[in-house]
């Protein structure tokens, strides 16, 4: 096993190879980015149409809604880069190709994570940066050192929470040889839920997204801090816990994955 620090240059080596491979298919790459921007812009247009008649959704206006959405999109962008391929761990296990991650002298979790580096996430970043600039000027958000640092840490927390859930979902594959399906059943709808302020959902759902699968910390709680909005049922400062929640949730996910790995029996040949 290598020391922690020597993993960093290794990560960039592995990732660099991945990026070069993806750039071979330039047309596909551009189409994916265009597609993602279109999909997110589509959701934004839907929000706009929705609020055309009603003006407000649970005390949130269109621009605030857009800001909330953009935080979710940016942290999801990092998740796609780092962890999205975890959902298809089942395919690797069933095909027997997972074994190659076990025979090398590095941490298998790290190796599996560094295997893929999806630069298609550029679409998420273009969209969310555009929204941040636009919404900040409309809503008069003054970016100072304090709230900028908070936003960065909130995004890191959000990446760890969503990445943690992806890791947990993939760990299911060690026992059941299924994971991709669980992504589409659990995580995809959950991510859709968090595109809107959680305050509009029944109390049970709000509790669930705060304390069980902490998706509320991905965008809702941090956004209420930055936009200085009141939230029902929870203290106003709850958003500040985002980085901590992310760290703890991810560590649990990592432990679970390593625990599952001990249970893993190769599909064999």
């Amino acid at each position, binding site marked *: 096993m290598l020391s922690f620090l020597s993993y960093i240059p290794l990560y960039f080596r592995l990732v660099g190879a991945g990026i070069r491979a993806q750039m071979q298919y330039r047309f596909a790459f551009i189409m994916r980015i265009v597609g993602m921007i279109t999909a997110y812009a589509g959701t934004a247009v839907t929000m706009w149409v929705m609020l055309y008649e009603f003006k*407000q959704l649970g005390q949130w206006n269109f621009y605030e809604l857009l800001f909330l959405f953009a935080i979710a999109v940016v942290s999801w962008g990092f998740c796609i880069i780092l962890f999205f391929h975890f959902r298809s761990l089942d395919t690797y296990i069933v095909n027997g190709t997972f074994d190659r991650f076990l025979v090398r002298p590095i941490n298998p979790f790290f190796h599996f994570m560094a295997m893929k580096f999806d630069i298609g996430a550029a679409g998420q970043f273009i969209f969310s940066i555009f929204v941040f600039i636009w919404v900040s000027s409309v809503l008069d958000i003054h970016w100072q050192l304090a709230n900028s640092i908070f936003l960065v840490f909130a995004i890191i927390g959000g990446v760890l929470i969503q990445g943690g859930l992806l890791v947990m979902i993939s760990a299911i594959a060690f026992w059941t040889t299924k994971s991709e399906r669980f992504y*589409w059943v659990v995580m995809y709808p959950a991510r859709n*839920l968090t595109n809107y302020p959680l305050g509009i959902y029944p109390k049970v759902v709000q509790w669930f997204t705060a304390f069980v699968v902490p998706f509320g910390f991905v965008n809702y709680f941090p956004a209420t801090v930055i936009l200085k909005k009141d939230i029902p049922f929870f203290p106003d400062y709850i958003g500040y816990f985002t980085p901590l929640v992310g760290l703890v949730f991810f560590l649990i996910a990592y432990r679970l994955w390593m625990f599952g790995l001990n249970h893993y029996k190769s599909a064999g040949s």
Partner: protein
Amino acid sequence: MEYIRMYSTFTKKAFLRSAAYRFDVWSRLISNVIFLLMWGSIWMALYSGREEAEGVSLVVMLTYVAVSQFLNAVNGAGTPLWEIQEKVRTGDIAFELMKPFDVPLRYLFADFGSVSFYILTALIPLYTILFIFFDLELPTSWLVWLFFILSAFLGFLIRYCIELTFGLFTFWLIETGGIEDIFYFSVSLLSGSVIPLWFFPGWLQTIASYLPFQGIYFIPNAIFIEEIAGQEMFMSISIQLFWLIVCYLILRFLWNKATKKVIVQGG
């Protein structure tokens, strides 16, 4: 007759195949429930205290959401588009084209099988419970039921034609990401699947009324909640029929062009 018997074999096979993948049914149902919860909550929050908006009460609006999610589940229960596209990419589509049946019809009839399995085993129980325990409104006359079922079926066919047409671009482009996303966005917004057309700004409503997408969700939904009633029902059904014919002809035209151009990758 011979024809119908042949294609209905695909329906029967697909029905039986669905029965073998029970996990699939459960997982679809769970995500359907989550989306019901999401759109139900959103509309309750949008109304927040208002008696009605554009002459539509909250109860009627929530019924619209429920019917829309039901149709959404129905439309999503067939062979997913990517599965057909994957066959184009790998070249397996060539084997299907060689066989003595019409591929679009074959997939349509297979979809009838998997969709009816899903409706019978999952959707009818779920939505019966939903309509019993929540304050939602059912149509009062059997005529409305009849028109709703007819309209929903036409909507299903329109969606099938449009989706397959978009899928055909795989024959030329191989990577279709961007085009597909435009398709999914148009279907979800302009079809009125999540926001009824009467809440659109005027200009967008006009655009939507000249497009086929309204036939997929908006018309059947509006018939169910009796926003479209009486003579208007005939008019709306005719609009759907018109779009079905147009979409079918476009699909046929592109299908003939595309299959002449099969690129078998790595073949």
